[in-house]
């Protein structure tokens, strides 16, 4: 593993649960917190050993709300990582909730080599934050950007569009406010409301799935329709484009040279290791994952169990989908060289099916989604499945 791997560390703890969120989460006050962090240390040590202490090219702390960790916890985590891996990353990202990052915590993260702060702004509109069940205030995001700037960190702002009651004008204001803060990177996600419970439900006492389900149903009913969301996406392309951001993945825009190296690893089908509850890994062509439910995760880590392998994974179709998510697209010649003619033929025939609807553009051996295709990517991807 000379190229090194991407390393993802999952910190599930949150001050409160955002009702639309599907990640592995748990209350910050959970009694399992220290056991979780111990289990995480143990998993890090074990994986580092199994993989022969590889180099981590990129490091990403996601959640959950990793910015909630205490300085001592951050330091212990850093020590564990340094013992298990060669830490010379080109990029270290921390996901942060606005209003969670204080000076002491930031110092601890900086000591770990932090280069980039990904701020979960979601919206600058108080109605939007309320509609999304967020607890921070619009001005908290700007303050977080200032903190990052002071520490010379690159900034990503996460925005969510298509929340209940959002208008095109409101969305445009959000985008303009975001652009005015001059982050290096912007992610814009349409509000997706899945109606199947995820694995982290048992981590949250009380409430539970029925409450979330009710919220999601109500939100889905009040959301702009697909045509409205499609229009908002076009607005994002226009506003961010004008502000100097280049679109590079379905939901991601960046200034020149500021694309997320860690996330590019996912889309380019590179190797990465994910540690922590609900974390996914892709190593030597195999996909695997940890359980999202803390108790299962901890007991597996304590007993040294393997991650759950995704036996149905189909590397050829997955690689094609991931590559097509990027504006750089899919190089069909290289693809055929990697996966063989059968897989390449399938991809070509899928592309032929969607080409008349202007979802993809194929030039020679190079295929990419059109702006319309980005919005209808599932129509393309579903045809890539074996």
């Amino acid at each position, binding site marked *: 593993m000379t190229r090194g791997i991407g390393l993802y560390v999952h910190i599930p703890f949150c001050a409160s649960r955002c009702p639309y969120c599907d990640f592995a989460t748990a209350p910050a006050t959970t009694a399992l917190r220290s056991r979780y962090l111990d289990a995480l240390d143990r998993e890090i040590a074990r994986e580092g050993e199994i993989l022969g202490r590889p180099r981590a090219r990129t490091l990403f702390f996601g959640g959950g709300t990793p910015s909630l960790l205490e300085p001592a916890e951050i330091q212990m985590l850093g020590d564990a990582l340094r013992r298990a891996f060669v830490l010379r990353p080109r990029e270290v990202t921390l996901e942060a909730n606005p209003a969670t990052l204080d000076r002491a915590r930031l110092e601890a993260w900086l000591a770990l080599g932090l280069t980039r702060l990904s701020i979960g702004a979601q919206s600058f509109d108080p109605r939007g934050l309320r509609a999304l069940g967020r607890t921070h205030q619009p001005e908290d995001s700007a303050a977080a950007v200032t903190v990052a700037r002071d520490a010379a960190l690159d900034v990503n702002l996460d925005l969510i569009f298509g929340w209940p009651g959002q208008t095109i004008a409101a969305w445009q204001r959000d985008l303009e406010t975001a652009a005015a803060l001059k982050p290096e990177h912007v992610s814009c996600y349409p509000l997706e409301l899945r109606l199947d419970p995820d694995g982290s439900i048992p981590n949250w006492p009380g409430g539970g799935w029925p409450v979330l389900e009710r919220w999601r149903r109500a939100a889905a009913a009040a959301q702009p329709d697909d045509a409205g969301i499609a229009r908002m996406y076009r607005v994002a392309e226009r506003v961010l484009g004008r502000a100097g951001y280049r679109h590079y993945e379905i939901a991601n825009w960046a200034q020149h040279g500021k694309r997320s190296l860690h996330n590019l690893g996912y889309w380019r089908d590179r190797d990465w290791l994910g540690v922590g509850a609900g974390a*996914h890994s892709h190593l030597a062509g195999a996909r695997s*994952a940890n359980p999202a439910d803390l108790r299962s995760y901890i007991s597996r880590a304590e007993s040294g169990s393997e991650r759950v392998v995704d036996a149905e*994974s189909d590397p050829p179709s997955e690689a094609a*989908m991931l590559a097509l998510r990027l504006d750089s697209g899919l190089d069909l010649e290289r693809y055929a060289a990697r996966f063989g003619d059968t897989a390449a033929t399938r991809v070509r025939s899928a592309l032929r099916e969607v080409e008349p609807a202007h*979802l993809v553009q194929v030039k020679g051996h190079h295929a990419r989604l059109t702006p319309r295709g980005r919005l209808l990517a599932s129509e393309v991807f579903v045809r890539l*499945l074996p």
Partner: protein
Amino acid sequence: MADLAHIRNFCVIAHVDHGKTTLSDRLLETTGTVPLREMRDQMLDSMELEREHGITIKARAVRMTWREHELNLIDTPGHVDFTYEVSRSLAACEGAVLLVDASQGIEAQTLANAYLAVEQGLEVIPVINKIDLPNIDLDVVREELRTTLGFRDQEILLVSGKTGAGVNELLDAIVERVPPPVGDVAAPLRALIFDSHYDAYKGVVAHVRVVDGSLGDHDRIRLFATEKESELLELGVFGPDPRPIARLETGETGYVATGLKAVADCRVGDTLTLASRPATAPLPGYRPAKPMVFAGFYPSNAQDYPLLKDAMEKLRLNDASLIYEPETSQALGFGFRAGFLGLLHLEIVQERLEREYDIDLIATSPSVEYRVITQKGAEVAIDNPALLPDPGTIVEIREPWMKVTVIVPTTFVGPVMELAQTKRASLADMSYVDPTRAMLKYDMPLSEVIVDFYDQLKSSSRGYASLDYEFAEYRPADLVRLDILVAGTLVDALSIITHRERAQQTGRVLVNKLRGLIPKQMFDVRIQAAIGGKVVASETVKAKRKDVLAKCYGGDITRKRKLLEKQKEGKKRMKMVGSVEIPQEAFLAVLRIGDDT
């Protein structure tokens, strides 16, 4: 073995739910044919489906003994689709018990079958059943029997199949009133096949009534209509379980394991004779099964076609009335066009295919057989709307009309008449079976009968109306083919033949229905209804605007793929027509047009 004078062959004519099966069981019990401890409820119904539909499809004969007489109870089918089978069962009898539910009164179909029995010269014994029920008015039922069939009060027997009251008297009446069979004992064998079924071990089993001559268990048999010959495997009677015997004599009823492989070789109504000494002429009254309703059967998944083919072949072994031939639809691929005696028959076959053979089916909307007179003077039978020739070449289209009888409480006459009007029916006669119930006779196109008429009739009479119909004649009609185009491609499986006056409205309703059923696709999909190339209605399913999983869940590709797989499963259940995915329900939309025209 009994001499002719001591044989009585009879059947029971009754409406569904009027207690025929319970009474039959009681007869078996009272005559000691089945000891009480072996009685199962509903001894005579055998197929699971028949039980669920509450009807008896396959006739069987059961032999009983009462006061030194051999009584053969011949079961009759109880549904309008099987009129011909009923007539053959009646032809095997000299007498019929007309069973009427004391709380329900006589129903249209019962009456039709009773008339059939009278026409065939049977001695009909009127019996009022369920006299144990509270709040019944026997006088009303008596009056019905007087008015409709001219019975005298003293002829009418009262029984309760449930308690057994009056059953002895009924058995006595059968012996006393039903005449013994007449036949030529010395003549060559002529046995009427009134039913046949396929048995996995014995092959085709024919249920016969020996009219002339006799049959031994080593005889070689011959069938008139199909000209098949075979060594018979077994001869026997039902009591009610099969019991082999050595000979069947003149006037007797029993079964013959023919050694034949397909029920189609041994048709109901055909005459069975001896190969060594054949009779010179068959018994009268045979006619081949005449399908009235047609539909296309297609596997939902094209790769299931061999399974469907195999299942259809197996079903045909057991169902001589089921006819089919391979058919190809541009929209649905390879399948079969099948003909049925009626809608119930269609439903039974469809259910058996789905349930017993586990095949996921798409059935196209049912059609009748049209007769098309072309300019060249030829008459062409069309049972698939998609095959209707170019209107320019057609001189005339004829469609089958039925004589429809509805018996309904007088309070519902209005709603029934309104319904009939929407079905192009014309009232031929109206009379009263008793002061509270009217009998309406209509002439009506079969195509209207098969689209929902029975259900609508039931709902406009709170379930009280009963229905009977029989084929009357072919009549010319101003009919056109309504085609459906999806994204400019004609979807043959959605074509229907409809009355010109209503075609445009039907087209609009259908197109609107389809717009709701066809999901959004990658591009706008235009749905059009056209008559002879002229578009009469059009709707558009707007293109899908957004379908993307944008969020990158920490490299969770697995979940994304699973969601896509679910999406793919949904696509699989649809049929690709051109570049458009059409869900199965769309092919049934035609059936439900009636709801909103």
